[in-house]
């Protein structure tokens, strides 16, 4: 909308602008083109970005390089993995320019196998397990650990005889997810939350499907995998007929 009418600079540019494949692509995806052409070069994004200066990059520079069609530089800098896509720059920007969206697309442009191994591995694990656990936790282990800890609490702590944990209980109000970290490395951390839910009389259940809270496929910028994981989780909640998908964060 704005592109057609905006005045472009009349001075001879220092860098010969190329058509940026990325900029065009992202603009197509976003309403109002994500305002990506509206940058005032004010620098507010960069001054409040914790990733500024890492690998000699910052959000304003990144956007400028995109705007000038320096696709080779932007698709090769590891900086896209150092921006956390936290959106602070979007919040600060007078034009609400969505730089992290651009970062996401650049991440997605990296050949899959060259993206950081840890993120790739976490996404793969999520795809391989029915619970979508990035740590590769199997659902039967999750259930076993939870039930084991529950028994221990009942045996060793007074007043918790009625404390309950259910799995796959249809019609529960809340479908509670759980970060894999708890069942895998610190199962006792699940107990305080159970106690709170019990105290308020909340009607909740865990599920053996789509229970893991984390999602690294999004960070990997793998749309297909991200969608697969979200579909699995959404279906799990709807199959149980739960009213809320409840996050522990």
């Amino acid at each position, binding site marked *: 909308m704005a592109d057609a009418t905006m005045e472009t600079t009349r001075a001879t540019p220092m860098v010969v602008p190329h058509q940026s494949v990325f900029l065009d692509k992202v603009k197509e995806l976003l309403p109002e083109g994500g305002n990506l052409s509206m940058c005032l070069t004010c620098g507010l994004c960069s001054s409040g970005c*914790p*990733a500024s200066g*890492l*690998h000699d990059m910052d959000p304003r520079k990144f956007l400028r390089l995109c705007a000038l069609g320096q696709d080779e530089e932007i698709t090769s800098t590891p900086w896209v*993995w*150092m921006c*956390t*896509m*936290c*959106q*602070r720059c979007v*919040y*600060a920007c007078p034009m609400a320019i969505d730089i992290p969206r651009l970062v996401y697309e650049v991440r997605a442009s990296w050949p899959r196998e060259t993206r*950081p*191994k*840890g*993120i790739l*591995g976490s996404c793969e694990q999520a795809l391989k397990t029915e619970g979508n656990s990035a740590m590769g936790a199997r659902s039967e282990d999750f259930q076993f650990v939870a039930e084991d800890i529950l028994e221990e*609490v009942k045996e*060793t*702590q007074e007043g918790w005889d009625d404390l309950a944990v259910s799995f796959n209980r249809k019609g529960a109000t809340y*479908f509670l997810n759980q*970060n894999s*970290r708890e069942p895998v490395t*610190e199962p*006792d*951390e699940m*107990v*305080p*939350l159970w*106690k*709170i839910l019990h*105290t*308020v*009389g*909340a009607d909740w259940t865990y599920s053996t499907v789509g229970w893991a*809270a984390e*999602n*690294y*496929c*999004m*960070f*990997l910028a793998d749309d297909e995998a*991200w*969608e697969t*994981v*979200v*579909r699995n*989780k*959404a279906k799990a*909640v*709807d199959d149980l*007929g*739960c009213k*809320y*998908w*409840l*996050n*522990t*964060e």
Partner: protein
Amino acid sequence: MYAVRVGLQKFGIKHNFEIESIIRLYARWIREGKLSVSSDWNKDLGITFTLQDPCQLVRKSFGDPVAEDLRFVAKSVVGEEHLIEMYPNKSNNYCCGGGGGYLQSGYTEERRAYGAIKLKQILDTGADYCIAPCHNCHSQIHDLIHHAGKDIPVVHLWTLICLSMGILGENERGYLEERLAELGL
């Protein structure tokens, strides 16, 4: 949560449920009197806390209203006078550097450099403990503090809620560390 919320929109996935955050429920349950928390345990102890606003929950999902809920819960369990804010905060908060897959990315040095702002913010508060109600924040802040050789335990909200109600078991205190390890047992 962000990944699911945005994923549902982005991929046009039909669903019949709503997304809820436990933080908002904590606040509601305390307001409704269902969770009888109290900060009495900390009256004499005077242990101070600072609070991290997770980007995924606040800026990227529910905005300042959930940041207010977060403060309401935190103040209810540790005492208003014992909560020391970082600035800027709420929707304008700095990301700690635990998000975006950073902790898994292998860029450890860069991740810590990114977190330097957060570390400074936390140290500037002078608080004894840091509340981090998000797993990535929790891991990242724990690492930043530990790496800097400081002793500021990072705690989950559920730990403090149960502590304040006197129902926190012995094995559920992994993150409380010495000063609060035995309180209310």
